[in-house]
Structure formats: C-alpha cells, structure tokens
C-alpha cells in the first residue's frame, strides 16, 4: 500500500486542480478546445525525450506557445477557433506520435503516474496547490466573464487578461496531468468531473466543489484499482470518471422528468 500512497496523493492533487479548471471550461463551453489542447503537449514531450531534457518542460513550452496562439486567434482574427483546433491540434498529435521514440509512446499517450520520482511528486503537488489557489482567487471574475463579457467589462474587469491567465493555468494543469493520464486522455481529466458536477449542481459553489470531489475520487480510486490489477492508471481513471458521469446523468434525469427538460 505504501508504494501507491504517494502516487494516490499526487493524482488527487493533480485531479483537483484539473477538475477545478475544467468547471470553468464547461461554463465557457470550451470543452473540446481543452481536450484538443492536451494533444499539443505530445510533440513537445517527444522533442524533450529526443534531446534528453525533462518532458514536462517540453510539454509546457509547446502548450504555452499554443495558448498564446489561441488567445491571439480569438482576438485578432476572424478564423473560427473550432476549425483551427480541429486541424492544427490533431496534426500535432500525429506529429508527436511520429517523433516520439516508440517505447515511450504508450506512456506519453496514456500516462503513468506511478513512475514519478519523489521530487517530481512534490513539484506536482506544489504546482497543483498553486493552480487551485490562483483559480479560487479569481473565480468570481471568471464566472462573471463567462456569464457576460459585457457586464464584466462594464465594471472594469480586464477580460483579455483574465482569459489569458485562465488559459495559462489550463496549460499548466494539462502539462501536470499528462504524467497521470497521458496526452490522449488528458481532456477527460479536465472535462468529465466538471460535466458530472454540472448534472447535479445548481449553484456555482456546489458545482466547483462537486467537480473537485468527483475528480479526486476517481483519481485516487483509479490509482488503487490499477495497482490491484497492475494496469495503467490513466484509462482506469477515465472509466471510473465516466461511471460517475453516468450516475449523475441518471440523477439529473430523475430530478427533472423529460417533460420539463429544456
């Protein structure tokens, strides 16, 4: 048990920050952007492995450039973000898969948190705590920005700056989570807990809280189950997450019968 305790704790923190960020991605209706964004990390990790530096740095560098790109596209051009995401991001997943040394590919795509060193674990927890603190300190502004950019701007909130900070945090959370669930499944770490929370929460606070609880629950259970049956934790996490989603969906349907659903 002691050799999975640390990965469990790391996974719980990483999932907590990812699902908190995810709750705003759901509010902003940018779930797919978040999913595709995680693919961009792959070529960065591949280059890092080729040139023998830390894959986390490679992932962060590529994500950073992409986030700046998204931000610029949103404000400076009339191109549809969806189109760019659809083409460019999957292309980078393909490029990453080609460049990546073959024996590292599976781990990069599906993650493996149990192989983290102690210093990596401590760093992951610290960065997660930082991200959670950051989001909690700006969540009211974020929520207002997502309800109405115009109202937010009318009371002096700098929307562009806010969105940039959010995207950067998102990129960091993705880079963190990739060790856990891999580039292919990272989007689910961010989105599924928040999507499940939205099924059952009516207030913003309970929505954020439920998202974090579902994420942490699925992450630690995922590590535990994968250890029991010696399987890769990433896919197990996603399966448990999806089960939680299904359960919340049923609760939602029971609460509001079809006739009232809108």
């Amino acid at each position: 048990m002691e050799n999975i305790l640390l990965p469990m704790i790391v996974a719980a923190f990483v999932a907590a920050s990812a699902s908190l960020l995810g709750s705003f991605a759901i509010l902003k209706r940018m779930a797919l952007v978040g999913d595709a964004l995680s693919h961009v990390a792959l070529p960065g990790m591949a280059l890092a492995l080729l040139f023998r530096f830390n894959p986390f740095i490679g992932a962060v560098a590529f994500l950073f450039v992409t986030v700046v790109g998204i931000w610029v596209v949103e404000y400076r051009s009339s191109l549809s973000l969806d189109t760019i995401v659809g083409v460019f991001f999957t292309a980078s997943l393909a490029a990453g898969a080609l460049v990546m040394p073959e024996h590292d590919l599976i781990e990069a795509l599906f993650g493996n948190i149990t192989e983290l060193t102690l210093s990596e674990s401590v760093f992951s927890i610290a960065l997660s705590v930082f991200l959670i603190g950051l989001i909690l300190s700006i969540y009211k502004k974020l929520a207002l920005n997502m309800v109405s950019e115009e109202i937010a701007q009318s009371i002096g909130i700098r929307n562009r700056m806010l969105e940039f900070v959010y995207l950067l945090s998102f990129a960091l959370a993705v880079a963190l989570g990739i060790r856990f669930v891999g580039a292919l499944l990272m989007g689910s770490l961010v989105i599924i807990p928040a999507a499940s929370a939205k099924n059952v929460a009516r207030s913003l606070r309970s929505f954020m809280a439920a998202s974090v609880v579902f994420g942490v629950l699925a992450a630690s259970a995922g590590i535990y189950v994968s250890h029991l049956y010696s399987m890769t934790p990433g896919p197990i996490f996603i399966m448990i997450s999806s089960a939680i989603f299904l359960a919340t969906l049923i609760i939602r349907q029971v609460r509001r019968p079809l006739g009232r659903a809108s």
Partner: protein
Amino acid sequence: MKVLTVKNLNVEFGGTRVIEDLNLEVEQGEVLAIIGPNGAGKTVLIKSLIGIIPHRGEITWAPGVKTGYVPQRMDIETDIPLTVKEFFRLRGRQATDAKIAETLEFVQLAPDILKKGFGEISVGQRQRVLVAWAVLGAPDVLIFDEPTADIDIAGQESIYKMLYNLQKNIGLTVILVSHDLNVVYKHAQTVLCLNKKNLCFGAPKEVLSSEQILALYGGEGAFFHHRHET
C-alpha cells in the same frame, strides 16, 4: 450639469461606418431615450459609451461619474450552475445581504428569487435582476439597452414604471434604448433619433414630428411591428 458629452463619435466595423459624426449631451437627472430602426447603431452607441467598443471621437463623462449597464440580452443555458444570489455576489464585497435585499425591493422582486437558478428565471425577471445588479454598484447613470426585448406588453409597462421610479427616487440619470414612442413621450426629457447619424435630438414633443418619425423609420411602419434582431 452635464454628465456626458459626446463629440464627433465615429464607429466602424470592418470598413463599414456604423455611427457617423455623432454629437450629443446628457444632463444630470434626465432620461435620454435613443430610438431608431433595427441596425441603426443603438446598441453600438451604448457599448461605445461604456467603453467596450473601439471608437473615434470624444466621449467625456463628468468627473467621478459611475455608470451601471444592463445589456440587451444574455445567452444563458437554462441549467447554468449559478443561483441569483451568487450572481449578485460576483460583484464582490459591495454585494452584502442587506444591499441585495434593498435593490431587490427597488426592482420589485420577491426575495425568494435569490434561491432560484439564474438560467431558470424568466427573461423579464432576469432583466430586473440585471437592473438590480447595476443599481447595486451605486451608479450615477443607468444605461439600458432595449430593456423590453423579449418581454410581453404588461412586463414592458411595469419595467418602465420601475425605471421611472428609480430615476425619481434615487436621482439617477437614465440612458435607454426604446422601441415604444409612448414611453419616450411619457418619461424621456430628451430623445435621440439615430440612424447612423444624429437625425434629431431634443425634447420629444419638439423634435418628434410625424415627418421625422417617417424619415427615421423609412415610412414602412417598421417601428410599429418591431421585430427584434437576433
């Protein structure tokens, strides 16, 4: 005292002029109604006034003037996880329980609305919540964009009555986009007829001749069968 002076305002979108050389002034405590056909630039003007649209020309608010803004419409999912009370709280520390209760009274909403979901309440109720939200910031000037869009006739009348009371009781200056000439005659001290340019500006009874209205709306009766643009 003038709260707002606009000089030579020009707004362009992708090479198309939406507002051309507009000049106007707003006195403290008055109600200014902006009227004009669809696509005349009413919403653009309002957004320029609060500084959320890039523009050329001068928009000068009197020193220290605070504005509260109620947008034309909001695109909100019915199941958005946000209660009305939380929506008020997004304003920050100003939004104390007592303050919220006080502003709800201004807009004639029962306190039990606070527990409801922000996406569940009716469009009319949400409009009032938005007014209350704006009033909570203790503005000197309240800016309404088409407050009656999507609301039925009875709802329209009462929201104007409420606006009028706000203007009378807390001495607010009100700038509003209106579709209803009766409202303009009854409550506005000044009217601006807008169709890209300032076509008329002054007291409604003086400047709103039937020829003027015909010229403004193109004489096709579009005004009376107003359909809201989406």
